[in-house]
């Protein structure tokens, strides 16, 4: 099994970018209706970028709408030195952070995040063996909730990078651009975020395997 997200630098002249560039020029020239088709492939990425900061589905949806409206208004400012998708995700992250600041909830988390990054060592859950959780187990609501809660429990800086990189599968270079940090910072935060997930989830998944995955006894999975 491999994790599919590999680093794949964007190609400036690729066909998607060229097509989008053409659509953007037409929208800016007045064909505003075409904005629907331009952003449709990125609706999900924008929503999850906002959710990575805000954790609340309603706030994330409101922010996704604000992001798209802002993108429509400022489309003439888009420069093709970044992917259009990255530009959108960066707007979503900034809008979500602004909303969080407005709600005055960021203060405490910022302090916690800063402490986390200074601390250099992190220990994963040390277990003696691992029996794979099959993808079919995601049919169980309990498992989905367990995964969602684990991500929601991460400090913001780790949650953002994990959702962009491992949920949305945006490459490291584009993740760095969207978050406004270096690729080295993305890798460092990603390492911490992944080990935090392992530490929180591995013991829970191992201890709950019989109750969570009873349905899959006959599926040939290696849990039983």
């Amino acid at each position, binding site marked *: *099994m*491999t*994790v*599919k*997200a*590999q*680093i794949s630098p964007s190609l400036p002249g690729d066909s998607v970018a060229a097509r989008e560039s053409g659509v953007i020029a037409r929208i800016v020239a007045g064909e*505003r*209706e075409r*904005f*629907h088709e331009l*952003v*449709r492939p990125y*609706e*999900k990425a924008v*929503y*999850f970028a906002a*959710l990575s900061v805000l954790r609340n*589905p309603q706030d994330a*949806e409101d922010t*996704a*709408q604000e992001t*798209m*409206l802002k993108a*429509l208004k400022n489309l003439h400012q888009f420069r093709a030195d970044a992917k259009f998708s990255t530009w959108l995700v960066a707007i979503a992250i900034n809008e979500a952070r602004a909303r969080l600041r407005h709600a005055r909830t960021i203060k405490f988390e910022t302090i916690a995040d800063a402490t986390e990054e200074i601390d250099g*060592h*992190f*220990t*994963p*859950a*040390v*277990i*003696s*063996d*691992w029996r*794979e*959780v099959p*993808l079919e187990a*995601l*049919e169980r609501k309990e*498992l*989905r909730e367990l*995964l*969602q809660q684990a*991500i929601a429990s991460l400090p913001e800086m780790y949650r953002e990078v*994990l959702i962009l990189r*491992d*949920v949305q*599968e945006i490459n*490291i270079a584009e993740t760095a651009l969207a978050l406004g940090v270096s690729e080295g910072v993305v*890798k460092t935060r*990603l*390492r911490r975020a*992944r*080990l935090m*997930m*392992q530490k929180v*989830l*591995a013991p829970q*998944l191992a201890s709950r395997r019989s109750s969570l995955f009873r349905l899959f006894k006959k599926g040939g999975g290696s849990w039983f």
Partner: protein
Amino acid sequence: MVLNCQHVWAEISNYIDDTVTPELREAVEQHLAHCRHCAAVLDSTRNILVLIADDRTFELPVGYSARLHARLQEEMDEFQK
């Protein structure tokens, strides 16, 4: 190059992304071959990443896309007035 468990944990993320040097990859694999704990940490981390990347783990709210495009259309209609 001989790695201890802490070195391996520090490199697991880059190892999964295949962004380590060939020498480091070989050293990590040598360690994993003899350390069941680190092998289990790697396997569990990989498995968890596969689970969270699955479309079923995070779903969009029902009606999200329709509401988004309706809001965009409102804005466009307003602009035309």
